[in-house]
């Protein structure tokens, strides 16, 4: 292994400490692998490498001297567009598979199966029923659940191309539904949208870059539909998040406990593990872990349980290997998405068990414990007992848990935000927010989404951008690994508001925080949940737009993904654009090879749907561009 200096890999001090440990022990991490991948292929980076058929790979010379066309005749624009929309479709498939999982669970519950689950939040269930037009008067709970499951699964089954997905049609502003409907951008069926994207990008099919990109926006809207239904139904099943004080970073691990990390995205198993851990506490103590069982989160499944149970967050995507290096991680339980295949290789150097649970997501070298909702508690117990057994194999001399963690106030679902506002104005909760946007105390709202990437010093772009926008009185929301970055950096605290918010924003957050009984301002960054929970921000924005009688594209609301890497992030960014938001991406997507596609997504989209991509790798100028976009929207509203 080549050694290298880890001083600038991450802006997270715990990650740096662990990376130095990895260096000392010659353990390879994502950062080493990134180094070995340099230089990364220029054709792929520009999107000019096509591997869609076996005549390829074909490459278009970006400098115009070599080939201009692939063997089939596809030009740079066709190639770039086809690959981009395929990436969006993969993101949609991932989020929506998660959603399908939850929807099927609801269906099975309505049929009297799945005794380990119940509807924990009936109020939310009734609210969803109201949104989707399901009758509730005088009906039993299971009948309502059955209808909701049927409508939701309809979004995966409807074959009428002109009938939009139920969740989207019921959840967006009427103007947005009309505008996207007229453009043919409202998907009728999540699965069909993904399949049709694969079909139209097959060799010899759609070659028109504009038509392809429109198809990409349509399949991205299916991602929003899948995310929405995943979030809302999960709330009914597991509870709608309310503000809770938690903690973040590797200091949340405990030397005296059996430490179990949940990593992935789907709460179906991780939520049950949290419940069952309490039941098996005595077994852990009997095994020598005086502090019992300590569940910690990584990535989005971590956010799901952090939002609902206050489970502390160990770390986010890029540093997911590092909890193993503390020597105090008994097990990492993974479900789906964004899980590094390297985990078992690193776990081999320790006593840590890497446990895969989903039949479609296995990793060589990991132990597979198949998860079945019908035996959820039993599966969770098996997994926790494996972790307790691993505790007995821990080498106490190798335990090196960083002493650092940050308090984080999390759990800001749309409902929780409205409830906090209701403390200021019970009759009209949104009024204080609207008033402060109008008077300029709040200039606008930014939603931070996305991942980490080795192309950016971990977490640094998030922190820099959030501070610079909050200073200019922009309200900051975050989800997913963006939220993880802010939690670790201590920006989800009242203190951060006092330290970094502009005067106007500080006043508003203080007033609401005090009224809501927090004893101080609301945190500088509001944690809205996991990546599928971006739909929470859409719900809040939709309520705001409906109150003002405007469309989402009129609001001073922007999105930013400064450290994005996954196809899901591309899907999120694309639907953010489609619902009308100026959307910043900080890692350059593989579109630069086509000026036509680049122009389509950064300029033409604005006229078409109101939103557009801002591609900028520099957080400083990206902040200026986002702020300018907010000002442009304010001017449009006459503010």
């Amino acid at each position: 292994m080549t050694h290298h200096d880890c001083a600038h890999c991450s802006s997270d001090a715990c990650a740096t400490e662990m990376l130095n440990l990895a260096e000392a022990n010659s353990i390879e991490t994502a950062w080493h692998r990134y180094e070995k991948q340099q230089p990364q292929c220029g054709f792929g980076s520009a999107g000019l490498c096509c591997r869609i058929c076996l005549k390829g790979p074909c490459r278009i010379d970006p400098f115009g001297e070599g080939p201009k066309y692939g063997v089939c005749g596809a030009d740079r624009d066709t190639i770039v567009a086809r690959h981009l929309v395929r990436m969006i479709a993969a993101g949609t498939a991932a989020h929506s598979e998660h959603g399908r999982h939850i929807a099927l669970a609801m269906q099975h519950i309505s049929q009297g199966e799945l005794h380990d689950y119940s509807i924990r939040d009936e109020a939310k269930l009734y609210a969803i029923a109201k949104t989707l037009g399901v009758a509730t008067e005088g009906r039993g709970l299971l009948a309502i659940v059955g209808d909701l499951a049927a409508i939701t699964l309809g979004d995966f089954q409807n074959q009428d191309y002109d009938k939009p997905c139920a969740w989207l049609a019921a959840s967006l502003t009427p103007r947005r539904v009309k505008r996207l409907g007229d453009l043919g951008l409202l998907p009728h069926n999540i699965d069909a949208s993904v399949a049709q994207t694969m079909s139209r990008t097959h060799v010899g099919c759609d070659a028109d870059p504009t038509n392809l990109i429109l198809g990409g926006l349509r399949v991205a809207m299916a991602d929003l539909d899948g995310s929405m239904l995943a979030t809302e139904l999960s709330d009914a099943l597991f509870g709608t998040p309310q503000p809770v004080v938690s903690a973040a970073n590797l200091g949340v691990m405990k030397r005296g406990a059996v430490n179990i990390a949940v990593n992935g995205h789907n709460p179906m198993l991780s939520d049950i593990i949290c419940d069952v851990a309490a039941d098996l506490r005595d077994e852990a103590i009997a095994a020598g872990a005086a502090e019992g069982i300590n569940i910690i989160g990584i990535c989005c499944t971590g956010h799901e349980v952090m939002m609902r149970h206050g489970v502390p967050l160990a770390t986010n995507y890029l540093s997911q290997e590092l909890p193993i290096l503390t020597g105090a991680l008994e097990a990492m339980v993974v479900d789906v998405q964004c899980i590094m295949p390297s985990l078992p290789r690193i776990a081999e150097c320790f006593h840590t068990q890497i446990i895969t649970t989903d039949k479609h997501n296995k990793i060589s070298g990991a132990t597979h414990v198949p998860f079945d909702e019908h035996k959820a508690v039993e599966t969770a117990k098996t997994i926790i007992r494996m972790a307790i057994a691993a505790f007995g194999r821990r080498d106490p001399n190798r335990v090196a848990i960083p002493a650092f963690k940050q308090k984080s106030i999390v759990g800001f679902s749309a409902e929780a935000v409205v409830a906090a506002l209701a403390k200021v104005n019970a009759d009209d909760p949104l009024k204080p927010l609207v008033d402060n946007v109008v008077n300029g105390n709040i200039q606008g709202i930014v939603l931070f989404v996305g991942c980490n990437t080795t192309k950016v010093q971990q977490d640094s772009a998030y922190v820099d951008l959030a501070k610079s926008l909050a200073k200019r009185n922009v309200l900051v929301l975050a989800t997913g690994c963006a939220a993880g970055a802010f939690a670790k950096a201590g920006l989800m605290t009242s203190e951060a508001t006092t330290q970094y918010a502009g005067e106007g924003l500080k006043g508003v957050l203080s007033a609401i925080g005090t009224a809501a009984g927090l004893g101080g301002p609301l945190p500088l960054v509001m944690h809205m949940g996991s990546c599928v929970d971006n739909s929470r921000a859409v719900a809040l924005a939709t309520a705001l737009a409906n109150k003002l009688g405007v469309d989402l594209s009129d609001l001073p609301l922007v999105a930013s993904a400064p450290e994005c890497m996954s196809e899901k992030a591309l899907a999120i960014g694309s639907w953010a654009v489609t619902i009308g938001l100026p959307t910043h991406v900080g890692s350059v997507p593989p579109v630069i090879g086509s000026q036509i596609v680049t122009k389509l997504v950064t300029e033409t989209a604005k006229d078409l749907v109101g939103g557009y991509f801002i591609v900028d790798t520099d957080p400083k100028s990206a902040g200026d561009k986002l702020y300018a976009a907010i000002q442009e929207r304010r001017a449009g509203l006459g503010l």
Partner: protein
Amino acid sequence: MPPIKENVIIYANPDHCLSCHSCELACAVAHSGGHDMIEAIAANLPLHARNKVVSVDGTAMPMQCRQCEDAPCTFACPTGACRQADGQVQIVEQHCIGCKLCVMVCPFGAITVRSETVVEQGACTNRGVAKKCDLCVDWRASTGKTAPACVEACPTKAIRMVDLDAYRIALREARAREIAKSHRHMRVQF
């Protein structure tokens, strides 16, 4: 007067070249006047790689100037733009008129005459001058790198910059080891 040292050359191992053309992209970008690749592509700069990965008989071979010691281009050049200096064959672009004689006499097809600036339609000149591998002298000076851009960019390390003295020493040692071993077993008195 001490003997003149041979010029350093770029060596490429055809068994390791996967023909990804990364060396070509890196070469073009290294001679773009300080842009990075994404900027250069986005700005549509008319860049030119001074090397070329050539596919022949199922093998890929990165080709570039061999920095000849008795270079035909230096004889053919009517303006003296091609010259032997500082341990390489240089082309002084200010002296080049783009006559292409060097292109015709180069045994390796390593020289191209073209312009890397945007020329207006109907201008009285194409601004074309001879371009070839300059071992990234300027790029290395400005970036502090030790190896040329193509060597840096090669993901399989098929390309290297070779000092012939070092190459010879390695070669002699390898053969010396074998011959010495054989001579120990010689039975003939002479």
